[in-house]
């Protein structure tokens, strides 16, 4: 077995040193009835590297890779070009095969990266501090609601209709068990501002409200000014939580922090991580200085060593499960360290100049695509504002159209029917994402496929 270094002679010598006759004698504490006498039945035996690669390659080829299609799917995960140096660097064994930095003297590489990552996220979101990552955007969203409960000592959270429906589902799952009340609503395909429910949010806030959770740009791509909402929350002693599922947007769009958000969470997958069929992804979590001790997750902080040299450690760990156990701010332990590294490297390569150029390119391509597609008979652009994703209302049900177009190697977007039950015209809605990876040829391909399908 190529991954096991012990030889039979080694095993013999070690058993002798231990003073037992066989490896089985080391399992005497397992009741005999539960001890298998040989390999687990009904499973294949070991395979060569080449044979495994062949098996997995065959499975991989049964998927349509986004790069092999005209691709317009977003809705919470976005296809961006990741510079090749990102993947080379994260595969350095010192990063890839390190553990959580519990021994800081020999983990300064990971720790300094986390400090830089926290700073990048905080600046991107317009916040004071960020943590060292969560699992993904959806779990970060729930953690933010829990944090707002601890800060305000209230249990009613108001969720915008424009929040990603899977994020809403995750919160609903958890709220059933924690006793939080969630005020939710289904989005409407309102012309001009699809998925927007600002009026509902403003009128729902009361002095029982712990937080309002709003996504910007929202699930249908609509961008809103949240400043008034932030003021309304603060007037009632509630927190504003803003969710960002497309961090590239913040190279062009005003940050949630600038609009008055108290907690900003997001999905960091767009930058450095890739699509990966939904995971591993990268939960981003940032807030104001004054709330830092209520934050979930790991935090890296700056300090000095015994010689006075600057160094970094995991800090404020009295919030965490390994110290506080049942009184911890979260149960999270392993997070998304390597994805945070990929995000940080990609962000370093971009810098502010590159991020702004990337955002401008995404927006320009999306605007061009929206203009072209909206001229097709049977297609109506619903958004007045958007970044790199917008919602079309089609003259037929979009879910079957998406399936039909997939057969022509066009991955046209996400049908609202995949995400929501029918009603209010949602069944005809299609969310279309356009990034720097989208070519004019792709847009033309989608346009002609739509023309044909809607004729």
């Amino acid at each position, binding site marked *: 077995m190529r991954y096991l270094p012990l030889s039979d002679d080694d095993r013999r010598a070690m058993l002798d040193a231990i003073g037992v006759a066989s490896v089985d004698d080391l399992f005497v504490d397992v009741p005999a009835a539960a001890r298998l006498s040989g390999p687990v039945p009904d499973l294949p035996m070991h395979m060569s590297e080449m044979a495994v690669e062949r098996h997995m390659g065959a499975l*991989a080829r049964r998927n349509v890779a986004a790069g092999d299609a005209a691709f317009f799917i977003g809705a919470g995960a976005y296809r961006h070009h990741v510079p090749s140096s990102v993947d080379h660097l994260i595969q350095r064994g010192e*990063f890839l095969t390190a553990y959580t930095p519990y021994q800081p003297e020999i983990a300064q590489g990971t720790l300094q*990266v986390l400090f830089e990552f926290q700073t990048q996220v905080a600046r991107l979101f317009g916040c004071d501090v960020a943590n060292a990552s969560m699992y993904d955007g959806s779990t970060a969203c729930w953690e933010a609601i829990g944090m707002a409960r601890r800060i305000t000592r209230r249990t009613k959270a108001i969720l915008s209709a424009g929040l990603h429906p899977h994020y809403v589902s995750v919160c609903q799952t958890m709220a059933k068990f924690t006793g939080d009340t969630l005020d939710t609503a289904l989005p409407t395909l309102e012309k001009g501002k699809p998925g927007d429910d600002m009026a509902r949010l403003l009128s729902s806030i009361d002095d029982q409200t712990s937080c309002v959770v709003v996504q910007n740009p929202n699930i249908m791509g609509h961008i809103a000014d949240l400043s008034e909402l932030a003021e309304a929350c603060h007037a009632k002693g509630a927190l504003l939580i803003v969710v960002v599922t497309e961090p590239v947007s913040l190279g062009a769009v005003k940050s949630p922090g600038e609009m008055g958000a108290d907690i900003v969470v997001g999905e960091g997958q767009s930058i450095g991580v890739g699509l990966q069929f939904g995971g591993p992804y990268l939960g981003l979590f940032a807030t104001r200085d004054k709330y830092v001790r209520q934050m979930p997750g790991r935090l890296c902080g700056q300090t000095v060593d015994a010689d006075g040299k600057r160094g970094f450690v995991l800090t404020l760990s009295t919030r965490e499960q390994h110290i506080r156990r049942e009184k911890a701010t979260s149960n999270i332990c392993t997070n998304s360290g390597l994805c945070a590294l990929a995000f940080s490297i990609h962000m370093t390569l971009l810098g502010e100049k590159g991020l702004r150029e990337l955002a401008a390119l995404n927006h320009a391509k999306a605007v061009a695509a929206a203009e072209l597609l909206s001229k097709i008979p049977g297609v109506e652009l619903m958004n007045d504002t958007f970044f790199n994703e917008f919602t079309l209302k089609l003259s037929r049900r979009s879910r079957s159209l998406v399936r039909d177009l997939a057969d022509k190697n066009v991955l046209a977007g996400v049908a609202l029917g995949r995400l929501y039950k029918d009603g209010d015209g949602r069944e005809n809605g299609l969310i279309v994402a356009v990034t720097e990876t989208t070519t004019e040829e792709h847009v033309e391909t989608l346009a002609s496929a739509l023309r044909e399908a809607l004729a």
Partner: protein
Amino acid sequence: MTINQSGWRPEAPLANGAGDQPTFTGNRALMLEEPLLFEIGSTDRTGVDFETPSPLVGEGRGEGTRGAAELPKNRLGGLERGAINLPGLSEPETVRHYTRLSRQNYAIDLGVFPLGSCTMKHNPRLNERVARMPGFADVHPLQPISTIQGALGVIHQLAIWLIKLTGMYGVAMAPKAGAHGELCGILCIRAALDARGETNRRVLLVPESAHGTNPATAAFAGYSVENIPATAEGRVDLAALKSRLGPDIAGVMITNPNTCGLFERDMKAISDAVHAAGGYVYCDGANFNAIVGRVRPGDLGIDAMHINLHKTFSTPHGGGGPGSGPVVLSEALAPYGPLPFVAKMPDGHYKLVEESSAAQDHPGTFGRMTAFHGQMGMFTRALTYILSHGADGLRQVSGDAVLNANYILRQLEDVLDAPFAASGPCMHEALFSDDGLAPGFNTLDIAKGLIDEGFHPMTVYFPLVVHGAMLVEPTETESKAGLDQFIGALRSVAERAKAGDESLKSAPHFAPRRRLDETAAARTPILAQRYLADEDD
């Protein structure tokens, strides 16, 4: 064997004084200092080039790219971004920055990484190659089902392996890491109890030796937690457990093998007692590497157990994740597992059961616990690892892991106190305490001394039931020569601690940093580099 074949001793450069000689850079040859990104980067530097946006956008594009306001006909609703203050670097500078930082890390690729309960085993590189195949890496979670049959196939095949290896009924693949898996299992238990109308069962029993995630998870899911004591030999006190069972108990969370490195001999009796009292048994599977391929938790009456793919099945830890924590479930709990999940249809195709079809296909589900399908990138790696080993190789994995740990236990029990050594063989990790060290010397000194010997320390001060605990888990991917060198180093450090060698109190001496001031870090937290106006210079 000779521990250090070259004969060089770390004291040598200090003894001749050259070790104190300052350098202009602060570097020490290959030990390189690296400034913060914010001290070397600037907002006008970048390591990426983009094409100019399409002229389709229209006319009026301004010079430069500084503000989104200069975009023609933009649809941003007047909400343009102000200064972000994100410094950038060119590609060569970026590669150098991160490469230099990487060299300040210890890693499995450098040597034994004996963190107890963490299973730091070799990460096969085939797994990395497979995970990067475009058919896995470049696939969107919301693609039409017809275009993701291979991805669903991976999830299904891995699910079958996990079910058969554990002898369980079903598996939930969604959880993102071990603690998320615990949450999944506990939510299943709560949903099952709610379905029975037994909403008064709100207490979970957790042994004192449990990982901190166990009580934290129980609280996160709305349960209160009560400790159950351990016996003198380091196992769950069955009598104490039984006496606490009753109508308010939802179940137990037990780690098996436990964090003292011992198999819970009474596991089946514990399960039977809990079931008889109307509760469920959650098993923390963090230590599954000790028994994989040899013992099936399903044969021990367990209702739910998470499997850390980043431990037992070698997906890389990456400096703190990502993990992956699928949860195998008993027939009693499987109906309550999370959405979405993959189902194989009679024609061989796979379908995805989501909210829209849950009412008919999975009506008992407790709901969704993450946005998409779990950690696909970890599934491909874990399945690759499992196929490489096969049922025979996995049996050898647990055998060698337990052999290596017992070898360490027996080679060191004369110099380090091993509180449960008399309890019989250990499983895949060996537990020592700080008993017998010279006054004023503790476990931390041993850990820091090991760093100077070129090793990552073991898990320290955990489990809490042992004073100054040192939990050593070598894993099966260490050679005997590597183990002998580690044992020699730990013996040497332990002897110094017993002899009261003061130089150990200030160790490490040879790492990129000396001991760091964690108290100061927590008292006045500096968690981000503040933006300074002169940073752009």
